């Protein structure tokens, strides 16, 4: 009998929602590993100048296309630059592009979705048809077209990738906003005379943060992939800036003679994207335990 009582006490104890999510996440080993990789990547990006053994742009034609050695653990590229250093510096660009692009997508998508879901009717209809149009073109093609028109630069790359991600956030927030619109606390806010903008910012958006966070985590992974693809096609970050996609693109010509130029930068992208996806999956499972077995 004592055992029964203890169980109920533990069950009844109120845990904060965040604590509960963390408790569930902690049980997911893969998600934790993913998170560690992401944290590590942030550390590497922040301390790149300290961690990189060489200047990523120092050209030395005497040592070009060298394989791994103790001096250059991942070898050197066609200009004799140290690949490890370039990958370390490249982490900055990838993370920056990934997060800013998702920021653009989430902010614009979130606002459009909230407006559509909150007001409904014609405004909603117009916004959603616009999203349908954006969704009618494959994401990467849309990004290519935007970059092609705006010209290649870091900012344009982030804008292009960001815009191509707008629809997914718009749809997500719209769905939440529509279900929240009729609920009592929103009615209550309206009754005390809160403006629409205030209701959206203070009541609607905070209440759909959980799915937005999950979607953003997976979105950063997708954005890093898109940005790298564009750079690979020569439509993103331009040489000599150390960026993983453009490093691959340059290394491609030496696939036969010096494959390490292509192997390592791609591996870096794959690891980061995998870590973000595993973590995003785990986060979704712990935020929505119903989806778990």
């Amino acid at each position, binding site marked *: *009998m004592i*055992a*029964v009582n203890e*169980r109920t006490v533990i069950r009844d104890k109120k845990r904060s929602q965040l604590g509960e999510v963390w408790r569930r996440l902690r049980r997911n080993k893969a998600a934790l590993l993913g998170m560690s990789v992401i944290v590590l990547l942030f550390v590497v990006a922040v301390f790149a100048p300290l961690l990189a053994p060489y200047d990523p742009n120092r050209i030395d034609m005497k040592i070009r296309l060298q394989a791994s050695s103790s001096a250059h653990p991942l070898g050197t590229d066609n200009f004799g630059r140290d690949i490890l250093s370039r990958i370390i510096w490249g982490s900055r660009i990838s993370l920056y592009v990934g997060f800013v692009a998702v920021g653009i997508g989430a902010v614009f998508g979130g606002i459009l979705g909230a407006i559509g879901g909150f007001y409904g009717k014609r405004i909603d209809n117009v916004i959603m048809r616009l999203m349908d149009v954006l969704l009618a073109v494959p994401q990467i093609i849309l990004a290519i077209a935007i970059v092609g028109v705006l010209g290649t630069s870091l900012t344009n790359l982030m804008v292009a990738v960001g815009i191509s991600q707008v629809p997914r956030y718009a749809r997500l927030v719209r769905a939440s906003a529509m279900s929240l619109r009729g609920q009592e606390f929103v009615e209550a806010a309206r009754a005390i005379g809160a403006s629409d903008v205030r209701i959206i910012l203070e009541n609607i958006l905070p209440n759909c943060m959980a799915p937005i966070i999950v979607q953003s985590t997976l979105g950063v992974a997708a954005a890093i992939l898109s940005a790298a693809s564009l750079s690979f096609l020569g439509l993103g970050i331009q040489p000599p800036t150390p960026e993983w996609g453009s490093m691959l693109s340059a290394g491609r010509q030496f696939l036969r003679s010096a494959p390490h130029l292509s192997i390592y930068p791609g591996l870096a992208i794959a690891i980061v994207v995998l870590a973000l996806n595993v973590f995003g999956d785990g986060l979704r499972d712990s935020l929505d335990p119903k989806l778990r077995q």
Partner: protein
Amino acid sequence: MNTPLLQVRNLSVVYRTFEGVLRAVNGIDLDLEAGRTLGLVGESGAGKTTTALSVMRLVPTPPGEIVSGSATFEGRDLMTLPEREMMRIRGNRISMIFQDPMTSLNPVLPVGLQISEALEAHQKLGKAEAARKAGQMLEKVQIPAQRLQEYPHEFSGGMRQRVVIAMALACNPRLIIADEPTTALDVTIQIQVLELMKELRNEFGTSMIMITHDLGVVGEVCDRVAVMYAGEIVEDGDIAQIFDQPMHPYTVGLFKCIPNIEEPASTIHPIRGMMPDPLVPMPGCCFEPRCPEATARCATERPGGALVDGRRIRCHLYADGKRAFAHGRETVSHA
């Protein structure tokens, strides 16, 4: 005395979950004679469905596991039968009718196919012959045979349950296990379906285990009744005996829960408390925490089955046969 068709002995089933070992069925015995109908009553979570699924050997494994016991059906122990042999029994010698007709039919297959696939498997009929027989079965449950090609979503709830009944009867089984077959239906439809089941049972001479939490249904169709509580059968006997004079304190409580149209609603006496957490092993009687007549012995010692007047009771009060007769009247007068 008839020969026993099904004899379950000391059956125990557990589910191994993240939170621990859940003991769903705890060493139960059941007896069913050929041509008779046994009612298995109890509140939800008492282990009725698990009992039925274990007889069919359909307990989802993992997490479920039949840890002990035997179930002798037509002279063979179903628990040790090879899976191939068991497949020949399922749907052929023993059929099952499930609770919710809305979910127990496959939404993407025509109902005809869902009836005839059992016929094709067990009676080795060709497709056309099986379809013809399926049509006859539909007619038996009062659905026109030309609706064979229709999909479940084109039928109402009551009709779907009749389709399920047709499916169960298709191979003319010796035993049907019906798991709350009317619970999910409207009250008016419930009576229709129940009447149909009774009719067909008599026509085919099928034995039946009727699982329900509704004592009214038991009174309507059963010859014998087993009362289940927290994975154990606490009382088991002839329907007339138990309805006339419930003996186990839980059975007594169950009967006091039935509203009587001649009395005000305030005279319903629900049993206080809840079923014990099945994750926590109980050393004593499973009903002890809620029992109005519990003694110190009940908390520490598990009662064995006492045989009183042809019925089995798991309660210390009857262990020595001392309170055999006076008890029923006595508790009623308490109320």
